[in-house]
Structures are given as structure tokens and as C-alpha cells.
């Protein structure tokens, strides 16, 4: 316990606090730029680990990672361009709220849930220290497959009312996810001898094309400013309303946070998946689903809480075993390696001070980052009134840079444009895009883990306790959801059939 509070005091003392605040500000500023996600920023700053003491560089890197997914909601909500794949879920309702003139409310809700989600994620990391290793080992390929399957079952919830179109889009996403090398045989599928397709399509390219390009096209076609009218009410009042919304939906906030932590624990699944899981859960668990996709604040609270809490979960396998929970964790591991520190059981014993420092950095960076964003919300919302022709030029440039900067492959730009056209067509003709992206993200995880489970265990993996438990929970969840929907439909039918008050008076007469 002394080490826990001792780390807190160290973080707040100079120069550690300077690295914390500096990392937070760097993460906030660069998180807004499309394509510059946590991993790109960290790889640029990794050489710092050669010259800066490890205890400061780890604080800096953790702070950056913690807040890039907080500030990425600014372009997502205001202009409908998600800078990273993990902001795609927020666009559906966040941008819709901005179009209705509720941008400040959306931003207020987003930052508040990010702060709480991030702090709770750090707390979960702290609380799980005694059981870190058993938790990670409990998630084998069969468990990961069931989690992915659960995610696929949510395609219906993301279909915006048209189940058939949603499922078709989801299946198309799954098919697109199979492009490239098959996990078992090494055979190239749907690559048509094109070297670019050997490794499959990339999530960043697909999500930016599907969600960002249609917004840019819309901006070019529709005249006027983005909200198309006056902002409702006072900006500050809107922001406070957003913050109050978060506390009003505290149950959803807690559930989305826990979902993010659990997804983060599973190596290789990532915060993009956590976002969509949380969003789908928000839709499934809501009594009134009619406003989702049209500006429902719950569609902002859930994904934002989960993608921040996911960072705490990502650190669990990283610290416990030296297994990166996500791509950005592999860079954190690099910093460990440069410092000669070996993640593993010692991170829970002799090097526990470093673990506590990471926990505090996560929590404090989220508070500082979210706080800065909240203070600036009313000013940030004014960006909505910039002339669109300025925005289009800047956004298009950043989008192209975003997909090109990592791989220097022109194929990525072409794929983004193709998916942009597809996304625009889907939007025009009423096809939901979230099922496609969820199917795409989960396709590889589902197939890979299913094949590994069957190869190594035959069908005995179906009898594993955690698999059985998760399947039972899944079935119960589906039964409960169907029951509630039937009850709601019956109540609505009863209301429609009940005689109107005027008719009753005439009868009595």
C-alpha cells in the first residue's frame, strides 16, 4: 500500500508531473489528427526512451495512450470524421447530435464518460493485480471465439431496424475480413494475385472510407454550415446537460466500462471492438431504441466509456506476461525492453512500483485530458461554423495522409476511396454501416480462434467451464431481450387497441 501512495506522490512531483501533463497534451492534440493514433505517436516518441529515464518515459507514453481516444471525438462528433477506428461507433449518434445542434451536449457527455471510464479502467487494473495472471490464462482461443461470436450476435442490434439489410451488411463484412492468407492453410483467399491483398484489408482504411468519406461528400453537396441551423440553447448549458446525462445513465456507464476492461484483457481484440460491443449493448439494453443513430446520447456514453476503460484492460496481459494486449502495447513493451525490465510475475512483486505508476498515469491522464477538453468544449463546438469548403480541403488531405502515412502504399488510398463510395451508397439507400464494420473486425478473430480451438481440442473445447458459462449467459441474454421486446410490442399493441377517451364518452352516452 505504501508503494501505491508512494507512486502517486512521485507522479505528482517534478519532473514526473511535467511528463504526465506533457504527454496528456501531446496525446490530446495529436489524437485529433486522422491516422495519428496512439501507436503512430508512440513510435515517433520511442527514441526518447534512449535518452530519458524509464520512470519518466513510461509515464509519458501511458499518458499519451490514455488520452488519444478522448480527443478523437472532436472531429468525430463535429464533422463526422473518425480519426481512428476506435471512434467509429461514436460517430453514429455523436455526429447526429451535432447535426441537431447538440454538439456541446455530445462533447460534454463524451468527455465525462471518457474520464470516468478511464479512471474505472485504471482502478480495475489495480484491483485485479492479485489475480492478473489467472485472468489472462483463463481466456484461451475457445473463450475468445465465444466472445467474438457474442459480438457477431449484436449485428441485429446495429441494423437500425432493418434486420435483413443489417445481416447482409454484416455478412459482407465477414467476407471482406477473409481476404488474404487463410489462418490454417496459408492459402491466399480473394487476393487475385495482387500483392496488396495478401495481408488483407486494413481496419483503419475500411473504417475511414466507410464513415468519413460519405460525410465529406455530404459536406461538398449540401450547402450551409454543418448543423444547418442554430445551436440549441447555450453552449455551456449544453455541455452541463451532457455531463448530467452521463450520471443519469450511470448503469450503462458502468456496464460499458466493464465491457471495455474485459475486451482489453483479451489480447488481439482491441478498442475498436470494445466500442462496437458497448454501442450494441447500449442499443440492446435500451427500452426505447428509436433514437439510436439519430442522436441518442447513450450512443455516445457507451462507446466512449468502453474505449477508455479498454486501455486499463490492455495493460493486464502486457504486465502479467509481457504479451501485448494491443498493437500500442507492443511499443510499451519495447520501452520495458530498452530499460532492461522484464514484464511478468516481478511486475506484481519487486517491480510493483512501476505497475502502480502506470495505473496512476492512466487515471490522472484521463482526468487531466478530459478536464482540458471539457474546459475547451464551448470553444471547440464553434468549429462547426467554419465554412465547409475550408473543412473539406483540410479533412480530405488528412484522410489521405492518415491511410498513407503508416504503410506508404497507394493501395490504401484507393481502398479508402472504394469503401467511401460504398459507404455513401449504403447511407443513401438505408443500409446500416456498423454491421459491416463489426463483421469485418470480428471475422478474423472468430475464424482464427475457432480453427485453433478445433485443431487443438477437437470438440472438447465446448465443455470448458468459461465457454459453458459464457454460452449460458449469451442464451439468457437473448431470451431476456426477446422477452422484453415481446412485452414492449404487446404493451404497444394494447395501447393502440385501447378505446380513445372521446370514443368512451360517446359510448357511455
Amino acid at each position, binding site marked *: 500500500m505504501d508503494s501505491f501512495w508512494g507512486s502517486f506522490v512521485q507522479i505528482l512531483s517534478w519532473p514526473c508531473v511535467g511528463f504526465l501533463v506533457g504527454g496528456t497534451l501531446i496525446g490530446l492534440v495529436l489524437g485529433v489528427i486522422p491516422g495519428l493514433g496512439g501507436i503512430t505517436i508512440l513510435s515517433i516518441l520511442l*527514441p526518447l526512451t534512449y535518452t530519458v529515464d524509464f520512470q519518466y518515459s513510461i509515464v509519458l507514453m501511458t499518458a499519451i495512450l490514455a488520452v488519444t481516444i478522448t480527443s478523437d471525438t472532436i472531429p468525430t462528433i463535429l464533422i463526422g470524421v473518425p480519426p481512428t477506428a476506435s471512434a467509429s461507433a461514436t460517430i453514429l449518434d455523436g455526429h447526429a447530435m451535432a447535426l441537431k445542434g447538440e454538439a456541446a451536449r455530445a462533447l460534454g457527455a463524451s468527455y465525462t464518460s471518457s474520464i470516468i471510464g478511464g479512471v474505472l479502467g485504471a482502478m480495475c487494473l489495480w484491483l485485479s493485480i492479485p489475480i492478473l495472471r489467472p485472468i489472462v490464462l483463463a481466456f484461451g482461443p475457445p473463450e475468445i471465439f465465444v466472445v467474438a461470436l457474442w459480438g457477431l450476435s449484436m449485428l441485429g442490434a446495429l441494423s437500425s431496424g432493418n434486420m435483413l439489410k443489417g445481416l447482409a451488411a454484416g455478412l459482407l463484412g465477414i467476407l471482406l475480413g477473409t481476404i488474404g492468407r487463410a489462418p490454417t492453410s*496459408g492459402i491466399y483467399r480473394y487476393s487475385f494475385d495482387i500483392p496488396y491483398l495478401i495481408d488483407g484489408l486494413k481496419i483503419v482504411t475500411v473504417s475511414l472510407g466507410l464513415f468519413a468519406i460519405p460525410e465529406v461528400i455530404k459536406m461538398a453537396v449540401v450547402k450551409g454550415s454543418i448543423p444547418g441551423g442554430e445551436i440549441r440553447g447555450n453552449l455551456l448549458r449544453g455541455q452541463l446537460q451532457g455531463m448530467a446525462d452521463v450520471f443519469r445513465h450511470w448503469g450503462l456507464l458502468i456496464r460499458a466500462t466493464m465491457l471495455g476492461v474485459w475486451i482489453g484483457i483479451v489480447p488481439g481484440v482491441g478498442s475498436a471492438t470494445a466500442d462496437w460491443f458497448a454501442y450494441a449493448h447500449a442499443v440492446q439494453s435500451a427500452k426505447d431504441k428509436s433514437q439510436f443513430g439519430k442522436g441518442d446520447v447513450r450512443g455516445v456514453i457507451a462507446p466512449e466509456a468502453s474505449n477508455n476503460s479498454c486501455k486499463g484492460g490492455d495493460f493486464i496481459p502486457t504486465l502479467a*506476461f*509481457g504479451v501485448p494486449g494491443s498493437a500500442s502495447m507492443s511499443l510499451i513493451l519495447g520501452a520495458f525492453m*530498452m530499460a532492461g525490465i522484464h514484464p511478468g510475475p516481478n511486475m506484481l512483486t519487486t517491480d510493483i512500483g512501476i505497475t502502480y505508476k502506470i495505473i496512476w498515469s492512466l487515471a490522472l491522464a484521463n482526468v487531466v485530458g478530459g478536464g482540458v477538453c471539457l474546459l475547451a468544449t464551448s470553444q471547440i463546438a464553434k468549429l462547426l461554423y467554419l465554412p465547409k469548403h475550408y473543412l473539406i480541403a483540410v479533412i480530405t488531405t488528412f484522410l489521405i495522409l492518415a491511410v498513407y502515412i503508416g504503410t506508404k502504399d497507394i493501395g490504401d488510398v484507393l481502398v479508402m476511396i472504394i469503401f467511401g463510395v460504398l459507404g455513401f451508397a449504403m447511407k443513401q439507400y438505408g443500409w446500416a454501416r456498423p454491421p459491416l464494420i463489426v463483421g469485418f473486425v470480428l471475422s478474423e478473430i472468430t475464424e482464427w480462434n475457432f480453427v485453433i480451438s478445433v485443431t487443438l*481440442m477437437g470438440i472438447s473445447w465446448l465443455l470448458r467451464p468459461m465457454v459453458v458459462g459464457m454460452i449460458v449467459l449469451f442464451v439468457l441474454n437473448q431470451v431476456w431481450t426477446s422477452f422484453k421486446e415481446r412485452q414492449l410490442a404487446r404493451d404497444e399493441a394494447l395501447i393502440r387497441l385501447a378505446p380513445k377517451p372521446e370514443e368512451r364518452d360517446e359510448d357511455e352516452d
Partner: protein
Amino acid sequence: MHKKTGLFQCIGIILCLSIFTVGSLISYDSGSLYAQENVLPGKLPPVKPWRPNGQLTLMCYTGPGTAYDYLARQMAQVIPDYLGKRAIVQTVVGGSGGNALDTLYRAKPDGKTFLLYAVGSQIALTVEKRYPWDIKNINVLLAVDAPPYVVMTSVKHSKYKNFKDLLETKDVVRIALGGANMTILPLILQLEKSGIKYKVARFKDSQAAFLSVMGGDAEITMSALSSISLDPIRAGDLRALWQFSNKRYPDAPDIPSLADLGMPSEWASYNIMRLFAVPPGVPMPIQNSLTEGLIKTLQDKRTVEWSKKTEIPVTIVKRKELEERLRVIEAGFKQNIEIVRRYFF
């Protein structure tokens, strides 16, 4: 007057042809893998070492967070002292190294662009043609050795305490294979030779494969003897059964080698080597200067200290050994192409 003009023209043409011929001979590539081995018939006078006139680009075929990426970044810090210009690291991922090699192939042959990649990509493109160009036209400057691969099992869940236990088993051995791994071939050949039934599940990377073994879902896995595998071995999570090396690796003196267990010594050839290469057409003096600069960078005190701290070795492989290892791997791959296609590509 016209006769004198014609004479001067003839002399001029002869001189030009001579210079052209000598220049061609200087840049002629005899086909040897190592640049220094190309000698002209008769010695030329020593020339001043080539120095680049602009920034160098050190391409790396893997993304950030890998040993190649760290090695490239470390070298970029030291290269200016030996080659006189700043070096930047550019990662080109995808296609199992094919994208990086393709980019290298199309780069200008001015000596300012070179690539750090794995020998597996070289061999894969030798055995299976995937691009319109020939991999043999890429000039390999030098090779750096990587730690040998080690076969590991779980301390908690596995009943195999050593190599002998594994060879005597009657159960099906489940192998968790992390990523593309050339030593899968000799491992499978050994199991088949011993009549052991096996199943191989391919994981995305070695760490995911480790977790699977530590969780009891598979019996054995393999990885290079770097900190990635040494950490769980030291932590008591994994037990090493043997290493694919003819001599015991200094950082792992307790792990039996191929020689200790009577396994074929040529299996040590299947370990990773990290290659440095330049595009086709780079003149020989430039290749020689680059090679010398890279060798000095790798042997620099700063690189050596970094290597000790990160456990990423920087031992240069001698030319003869490199060619022999490549010959063994290529022959092995061609003979067992189906196994390779299934578990390596």
C-alpha cells in the same frame, strides 16, 4: 584538317569506350552474396570510400515494436558516425516482407536506401515467385545472426520434462506455432521420424502461442531465444526442451543443443538471420563502403551495449556460413514444400 579531326574523333571514341569498359567491370556483380568478394582480374588502386551525398533510408520490413524495428532505430543513431549522413528508419510492412523487398527493388540504386529484413522472406520468394522480378537480383550486403530457436513447454501443465519424454510419448503432441517460423520444418521432420502424432495450430504471433501453452491448451511452442522467450523461462512459466543450435547459446547454457541430443547439425541453419540488402544496380564500391559502414555500426560500443541490454544480438554472420545456411534452407523448403506452405507462408 579533316583527317586530323577524324583521328581525334577516333581517339575520343576509343577513350570513351575504355572508360565505359573499365566502369562496367567495376560495377560487375559476379553473383556472390557478399559485396567484398567481388574482385576484379588484377587489383585496382585503392579508391576513397564512398560517402552518401544525402540522407540515408534504412527500411525495415516489420512494424514498430519488433526486434527489427529496434535494431534499425539503434543503428540509425550510430550510422552517421561511419557513413557521414543521417539515417531515417522507414517501415514498409506487409506481404511477409514482400512489400519491403518490392519497394527496395524499385528504389534508386544510389546506395542511400537499404533494407533490413528476415532471411525467411528471401527464401520464400526464392521458392515461390510472387513478383515480376527475381529475388536473386537483390544484393545482400551482410547478415546478422539472431538467437537460436528454442522449443518450450509449460512447467505447470506439461508432462514433458525433457526431450526424451517428448520422444517417448504416445500422446498426440499439440504444437502452438506463433507466426512464420522456419524451424517448424525440422521440428515436424523430427516428430515424424520418431513416429509421434502431432497437431499444429497457427497463432498470429509467438506471445499468443506462449499463452496457449501456459494455459495448457497446447504442449509445445517455439520462439527465438530473446527476452520474449527468456522472460517466461526465467519466470518459471515455460520450460525449454532444446535449442536449435549446435552449441549452447551463452544466454541459455542450461538448454540442450542439437549436438547434445544427437540431432542433425544442419537444422541449426533454420534459425533466423537478419539481412541487409540494397537494390539491384548499386555499384560495387558503394556496396563495399556501405557494408564496411554497417559492420562498424554493428560493432560500435554503443550498439554492443544496447545489444546486451535488450538481448538482441548483433553478431555478423560470415559469408561462407551465410551461403551454406541459405543452401540448406532452400533445399529443405523445396523438398518439403507442402509442409512449408501450410505452416510457414
